[in-house]
């Protein structure tokens, strides 16, 4: 009886072994990349919104403050999506006939909500809370990116768990003075642009516990007096420039983000990484 398999089968068999291994590896890598890809995460995608609202125009162009629309970012887990009324505040006066704004006027006339598509959409089992991040020195741009440069809103970061944990394991890398939360262009201190910080010596809310300035306090900085804040308020932006003029003395100069971050971690009483990465922090 003739041999069933030719000698060349050996090579085929060896090749198929290697190939199987390769296929498994390629499949694994592909799936791994796929679930991180913008196709799954929607990172960078501009959704088809009823109104092509431009954050760039409103923030960079007109200088609107974030909280004009996102009113509850400092006091609640939700930052808040503005009601139609907020749009109409201005657009009953300007661009009253713009075709792009027809859905806004319809909403105002009929009382039906403008139906936006959620861009930063966390899974339902994640209990994200804006107020604690904002109050503890995480700026808007740290997560949302340069919203002031986005004509159409998109998601800058993947918002996947690994991305969250990157920061929760090492919050110092992203901490900034609470006075700079809404500063879209904030960059950490460097040797060229140092930051000086000092504890105010007052207890109370995080926002009032540290003073930071980008101008040398020794050099008779005229802005410094304006940065002094009152103790009584708990919100970041409720700064009463007239109160609390006591001048802190112990300014420290920071030339790197990690230095500033670890200083602020202590001053703001940021919980240690083991607590920040504990499951119940985000999942209930």
């Amino acid at each position, binding site marked *: 009886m003739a041999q069933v398999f030719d000698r060349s089968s050996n090579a085929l068999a060896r090749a198929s072994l290697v190939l199987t291994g390769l296929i498994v590896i390629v499949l694994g890598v592909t799936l791994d990349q796929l679930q991180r890809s913008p*196709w*799954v995460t*929607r990172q960078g995608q501009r*959704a088809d919104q009823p109104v092509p609202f431009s954050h760039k125009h409103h923030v960079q162009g007109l200088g609107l403050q974030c909280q004009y629309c996102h009113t*509850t970012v400092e*006091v*609640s*887990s*939700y930052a*808040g*999506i*503005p*009601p*139609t*009324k907020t749009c109409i505040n201005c657009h009953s006066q300007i661009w009253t006939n713009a075709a792009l704004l027809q859905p806004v006027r319809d*909403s*105002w006339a009929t*009382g*039906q*909500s*403008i*139906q*936006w*598509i*959620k861009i930063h*959409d966390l*899974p*339902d*089992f994640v*209990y994200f*809370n804006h*107020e*604690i991040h904002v*109050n*503890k020195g995480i700026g808007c741009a740290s997560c949302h990116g340069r919203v002031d440069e986005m004509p159409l809103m998109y998601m800058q970061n993947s918002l996947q768990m690994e991305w969250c944990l990157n920061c929760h394991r090492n919050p110092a890398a992203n901490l900034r003075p609470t006075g700079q939360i809404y500063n879209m262009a904030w960059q950490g201190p460097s040797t060229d642009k140092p930051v000086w910080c000092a504890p105010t010596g007052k*207890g*109370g*809310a*995080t926002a009032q*516990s540290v003073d930071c300035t980008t101008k040398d306090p020794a050099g008779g900085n005229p802005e410094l007096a304006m940065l002094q804040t009152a103790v009584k308020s*708990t919100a970041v932006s409720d700064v009463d420039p007239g109160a609390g003029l006591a001048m802190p003395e112990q300014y420290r100069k920071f030339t790197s983000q990690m230095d500033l971050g670890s200083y602020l971690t*202590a*001053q*703001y*009483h940021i*919980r*240690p990484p*083991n*607590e920040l990465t*504990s*499951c*119940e*922090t985000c*999942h*209930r």
Partner: protein
Amino acid sequence: MKMTNSGNREQGAEHVAAQVVTAIAPAQLTLAEVRAKLEGKSGRRYWKNLDELAETPGFHEMLEREFPRQASEWVDAVSRRGFLKVMGASLALAGLAGCTKQPDEPIFPYVKAPEDLILGKPMYFASAFPFPTGAIPVLVKSDAFRPIKVDGNPDHPMSKGKSDAYTQATLLDLYDPDRSKEVRLRGQPSEWADFQQAFSTAAKKMNGGEGIYFLSETITSPTLAAQWRQVQAKYPQAKMVQWEPVNRDSAMAASKAVFGSYMDAQYKLENADVILSLDADFLGGIAQPGFLPMATAYAKRHRYEAGSAMNRMYAVETMATVTGMKAEHRLALKPSDLAQFAALLAGGGEAIAGSAIGQPAQSFAAAVLKDMQASAGRCVVVPGEQAPPVVHMAAHALNEQFGAVGNTVVYTETVNPMPSEQVADLKVLVSDMNAGKVQWLVMLGVNPLYSAPADLEFEAAFNKVPNTVHLGSHVDETGAASVWHINRAHYLESWSDARAYDGTISIIQPMIAPMYGGHSSHEMLQTLLDDPQVSAFDAVQANAKTYIKDADFATAWRRALHDGWVEGTAFTAATAKSLPSAGPMKGNNAEISVQQGGVEVVFKPDPSLYDGRFANVGWLQELPKQITNLSWDNAALMSLATAEGLGVNQSDAVEIEVEGRKLVAGALVVPGHAEGSVTVHLGLGRRAEAGRVGAGVGFNAYYLRPSDAPYAAGGRLTKTDGIYDLCVTKVDTIEHRGAFAQQDLSDKEFDTQGTYSLPGHEAMERAIIRYATLAEVKANPNFAHENEGDVPGALINKVGYGPEGEKPAHDSSFFPDAWGYNHKDVSSQTVQNKWGMAIDLNSCVGCNACIVSCYAENNIPVVGREQVKIGRNMQWIRIDTYFEGDLHAPRAHFQPMLCQHCENAGCEQVCPVGATVHTPEGLNTMVYNRCVGTRYCQNNCVYKVRRFNFLLYSDFDTESLKFMRNPDVTVRSRGVMEKCTYCVQRIEAAKIEADKNNRPVRDGDIVTACQQACPTDAIVFGNINDPKSKVAARKATERDYQVLADLNYRPRTTYTAGVINPNPELA
């Protein structure tokens, strides 16, 4: 009625095989076996149910199998195929889910945002839950204007933030998908305006309103009473009858007889050293007026604390209740004896000629009287609402005799502004209906076709009335038969006012616009008045001017709404009225004619469902009833001796006959039930109209109930064929036990003290329940730990107890601070949080309020009768009831059991996917996303507190229920484990608030849902690392102990051992 009449196991098994989830045939308990086992046994021993006492083979079989009642599911061919099919589908879905993206989620912002609303932050509004025994002041948590939790109002002077199971469950009542959604005329959709038109036009044609009869539930609203007076002024011939199936007729009749007018009694248990309950279940729930202040005061005085003398309670009752079981001394008497006993007490202990009271009861009476005499002025007698008037009269006389009036009891005007004797009025109404005098019968919130006394033949009379109007939350038995049905607004949707137990008026304000456009009793009465369009709000506000005396009404009104009560409206004690001198009282109303060989049939409102109004509330249906742990069922409840006398075994079908009306029920033996009587609970056996939950559950005891003897009637009980597989939750806690305990059962030589029952064995040998008498604790304050060392009689010498005793050493660890919970914040030097809970077994009265509160807070699903029967109920907290001692006169201990958050948790070590992990603050958390459902953790949990979603129990589809969910808690899906989280969502919210302000979490910032509901402050939660916290103080007491400490699980929940204060004369 559900009835397994087969009585044939093969047949039963066949029936079972067709289901995916099977039930096994009920274990038949032979009472002779129990009796035989009990012979010659004495000493302190505990047991949970009778099966284990009897050691039936079935019970052993259950012990040896891990999931006894589910086992058959896997060997049965049909259900295995069904399982594979289901699993296949879910695997496919799981695969798909991994490859799909999250769907686009729309956002619907407000057009105009409401002022003051911060999305994500709940708001709280004060209101009150109107209940016939007095309104319960509530504080409602509202998320984006949806009520999501009902709790007691902490600012209220009477309730002080406490609540109860019914009040908690009204939330589900609001969102009940079966609520009536429209006005109906002869079953067809109609309009409210049409009804108003028809009713007011007809009324005008009638001579002074003659022929208009209102049949209302008990009125506690001053505004409704005022509106009725207006209606009466306009239509003097119109009549108002108040009637509810469970009413206060006895108290009213007695008060009329004694005081000459209707009066309410308010008990001040904070002043009472000695309490005698005559069938009063004042620790059981708000069915007894004044439950909240009485339970609070009782528990406060019952704690063994420095500087306060412990009270002592005596209870005389028929059915075993939590009040009786908390009493130091309890006497079980059938109703006729109970009435005679009351008369005996009032007569100074002299036995009445011809009385059937036996010697033990007489010496009990003598001891009680002596004790009350010794503490005159600091003692009180509380009569039960279902006790006959003669008992109330005796209580009044005794309270007068022992100087209680003015000290521990005060008499006030009634909470009901129009008090009446309801059954007598109903009888007149029925005869008027039969006589054709009734043209319009307007029923406000009552359901007489279901609950009227059977002998009145209400339905026949009802059919003679040409125009019947039913205002109800459901198209119930009466609503379906009425000409008009008006859908009723829930109290959380409507304006009203109501008086609480102490007389304080609360304004009831709506939390949400009526979901189905419902109407209230106020609007019904207003229909007859000059301006039918006056709303309930207008009526309440107008009438409020009569009791809000403030000159600035607008401000005072707003303050009343904000605070939830109106200052200065509490009743003042009436001046002393002449009371009849205490003397022998003939039981005029207590004669119960029992035929030869008959029993006394006792009718009680259901501990979970009251009179049936909550029948469609799944939380309450599934709630294990106090003492019996029956769920989704009622039964013929009787003592062991009675059952034996009748030749009835547990779960046998029995026929109960009262006045020729017969009903079949399952028999359930209740330890401590009075002999010669059988108790049936009202409120079940609703017809299909009740809704998807309540329909067809149990039997309708109203069918037996005579109008002349509404709470106890002579009857007859006979055994019939078949068995009724009762749904009792206790057995689900015996899924499996450790090898030691099983060895103890099989090798009797280890068992030297007769503590042969397994949970009983564990309760005692392993010291799950620890308590001492007052004398013992004074002699040895450390009694809860006296057996811990290597001393004779120590726990470590007992079978099944760990060889290292109570405080085993930690295993050595590679990590230097593996067991440390004392990390300090680098900058502030504050020590980290360490969460823990302490439960005072002295204070826990087993009222079940915590369980329902947990349902609402944690989105716990209702699983249904079949699932409960196989041990799959999902309650995160359960009340373990351990009976102790004599089977006929047991004592009981209530132990709330919930996740103990062990520092060295067995569940965490066996989870293959890390789904249950420890947090740095010591919480044992469940990560639902990681859970793959191996159930190893459940296996390895010694406290049996983990719950698994075997099926898709959570309702993801019903729209109205979505409004109810707590948005801060995940709604769990099928296949994941869940358990008590210590209300982690509340912990995180408090931490965020504290962190924002750079301060530590303060004691009291975090209140768990069970703690919040607890009327007796039995549960305390907080930071153990904070030495000033309440929980640290509790844990520092000598009586604090861990359950199963020898296993080295290091539970964070500890229990405070009980102390009782028995009378040495009766000991």
